[in-house]
């Protein structure tokens, strides 16, 4: 064992209470950081997945401006041919064409304004979880069937069930009057109130007839195998667009800008809190190391007059901090990991959280998952902060005069 290391280790245990209290501060902050970060990042992933899987997909090809305005005439021309091109050229099979219109949907005794989507029965299930969430009945299988699928809340409000007929009233792509009658073939229950209350889906061929879409559609929805691949596929799809077309390819962040921003907003407030914790621990370490340097002034004076350089002594003080920091990091990750593990089985909840969670398409109980990153990201920052704060006591040694120091009590 290296002599400096051995010295540093023994110095730490000259004052076990002080050392433990300092390590305690680290362990407390680290454990908290590990748990909070595991919880947060788990929540973010879930939030992104739940939101995108339900409907949005990862990439959409649209007419410019459609994303914000949702106007009927902002269409992708010859949409089916383009979708086939994308399927063939990228090798992705999770590609579906979708169109949308606002319509008044009426049952025998109720009417509601909803957003009606035309979805391709063959491919929709691969880009959206809604077809899979049909609880009663089934999702249409024939692209031209006069059938409609609605959300559970809408069904309750319209007082209808599978097999009943609904009337659709709206305007077509050219602004003309559009009307149709469709039979309810299924009712989905996504648990996302917005979708369950406001959305209906009809087969694409039927939609095209009713709303005079001809061969145009509003969006091609693409789901990539992995969130990290989105950018690569996005530029690949961009290169497949017909020459001279002004179509745009949006990634999920452009389609749901609120999602990333909500995460950023949450992260920045969280980072502020974490930063404060790290600073407090750093002060604690600085105090401890300053004390331990000051009380050894006499001793340092002697070893310096024997020829030890201030630089080497400084390294000794830093090494002591490193040892403490490592202990704090490991114990903190251990305690934090244990807390996270416990909650990953039992779930974490907080009074009132179900209401907040529903706003972000989240369940009311979370099961945080610790990963190597969430286990060590926080503790690593605390570690670095501690080392930085110990440089002040370590640097003070350079101003130490051996003779004066030896006289110190």
């Amino acid at each position: 064992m290296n002599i400096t290391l051995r010295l540093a280790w023994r110095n730490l245990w000259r004052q076990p209470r002080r050392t433990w209290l300092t390590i305690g501060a680290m362990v407390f902050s680290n454990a908290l950081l590990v748990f909070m970060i595991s919880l947060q990042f788990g929540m973010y992933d879930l939030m992104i997945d739940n939101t995108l899987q339900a409907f949005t997909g990862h990439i959409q090809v649209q007419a410019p401006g459609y994303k914000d305005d949702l106007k009927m005439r902002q269409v992708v021309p010859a949409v089916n041919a383009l979708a086939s091109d994308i399927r063939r050229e990228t090798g992705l099979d999770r590609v579906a064409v979708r169109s949308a219109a606002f319509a008044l949907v009426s049952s025998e005794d109720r009417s509601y304004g909803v957003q009606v989507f035309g979805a391709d029965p063959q491919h929709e299930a691969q880009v959206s979880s809604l077809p899979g969430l049909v609880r009663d009945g089934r999702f249409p299988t024939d692209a031209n069937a006069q059938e409609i699928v609605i959300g559970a809340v809408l069904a309750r409000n319209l007082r209808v069930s599978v097999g009943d007929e609904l009337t659709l009233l709206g305007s077509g792509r050219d602004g003309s009057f559009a009307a149709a009658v469709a039979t309810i073939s299924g009712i989905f229950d996504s648990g996302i109130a917005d979708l369950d209350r406001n959305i209906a889906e009809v087969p694409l061929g039927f939609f095209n007839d009713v709303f005079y879409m001809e061969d145009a559609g509003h969006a091609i929805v693409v789901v990539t195998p992995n969130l990290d691949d989105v950018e690569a596929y996005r530029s690949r799809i961009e290169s497949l667009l017909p020459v001279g077309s002004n179509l745009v390819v949006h990634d999920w962040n452009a389609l749901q800008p609120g999602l990333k921003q909500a995460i950023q907003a949450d992260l920045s407030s969280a980072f502020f809190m974490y930063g404060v914790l790290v600073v407090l621990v750093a002060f604690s370490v600085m105090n401890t190391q300053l004390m331990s340097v000051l009380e050894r002034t006499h001793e340092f004076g002697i070893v310096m007059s024997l020829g030890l350089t201030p630089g080497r002594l400084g390294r000794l003080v830093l090494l002591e901090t490193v040892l403490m920091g490592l202990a704090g990091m490991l114990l903190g990750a251990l305690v934090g990991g244990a807390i996270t593990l416990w909650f990953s089985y039992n779930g974490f909840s907080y009074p009132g959280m179900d209401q907040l969670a529903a706003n972000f398409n989240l369940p009311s109980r979370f099961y945080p998952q610790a990963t190597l990153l969430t286990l060590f990201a926080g503790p690593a920052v605390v570690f670095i902060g501690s080392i930085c704060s110990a440089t002040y006591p370590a640097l003070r040694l350079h101003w130490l005069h051996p003779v004066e120091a030896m006289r110190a009590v």
Partner: protein
Amino acid sequence: MNYAGIIITLAWRNLWRNHRRTLIMVAAISVGAWAMIFMTSLMRGMVNDMLRDGIRVLPGHVQVHHAAYRDDPSVNNLLAMTAGEVSAAMTAAGIERFTARVRVPAIISSERESRGITFVGVDPRQEALLDAIGSAIVEGEALSGPDDKGVIIGQKLADKLDTRVGKRVVVMSQDPDNEVADRGFRVVGLYAANLAVQEETYAFAGREIVQAMLRIGDGVSEVAVSGDDYRDVSQLLAQVSALMDEQDEVLPWQELDAYLGTMLGVMDGFVLIWVIVIFLALSFGLVNTLVMAVFERVREIGLMLALGMRPSSILAQIIVESILLLVIGLSVGNALAFASIVPLQDGIDISIVAEGMEMFGASSVLYPELQMNDVVLANIVVLLLGFLASLSPAWRASRYEPVEAITKV
């Protein structure tokens, strides 16, 4: 000099024997106290803003609906009383800030586009008393009375419908027999709201015109009443309940908007947790400082005991030392917090994450709000827990055996 004076003087002088250590600790406490108050005021500002925005949509601290209306906001679920009866009852009871609305789901169409909206028939003079969103007209003019034949829509909705002030739109809904009820309206004004989704959702027209269109006589969907303070509505609730038909549901806003109601509770919990977490992070350093202060004075304490100072005085001295340290730190921290919040009174622009904040239901300008009870809570929690944390080192110091302590090196 009296006894307390001596103890305080001793504690004060002891504190400055090692001014570096004391200053580091004061710095740590200040940062902690600043973070507690600053963060709390930001969160408070955000939540209060959300509450105000949320309540402003269709305001009314207490609202009355048909028992089934909230789940099924249909024209069939009207109040037992008519607008005229409500008005007479309220006026007789001396309530001024009330309004009766018709509120139904509808489809609004311009020449080019259709959208699903919530169509609200209002008496504009009564709404103005409650400061509803539709009162912030940015273009055109407000509705003149319940018989005004125009419609007021949000700026965002006007964009999406490709319409503007002076143009005509058609609103389609249903009457109680589920016959289509529609009518053409001229857009007379555009309003602005803090949240984009509000501008897109609500359209306002004269109540009498909407009643005629829906063929519901003088029926209304909701009555809203406001008091002076949105936090305490129990008295208003009782007063309104007594006036209304007992079949109808009278609810305070906290229960009408469960999300907002919960937010307030969650915030109170969050403030306390945040204060305690910061304190715990601080406490390790605090206890450490006290332990060191006692440890380096063992001989001196032994001498004082031997000279006849009572152990309780030693105990008091250490505790006073700790409290003084906390008071200095807290004062600096509070001053820092005030100093950093005052320049931010005009709001912090966080529009880069506006769409994310909208998911929380918050707007893109954050106004920090310093609430005295939060400041008092933070200070009291720190002082109280600080006192408890210093008991152990102080107790140990007072229990020294004088002879052993004096002879300790």
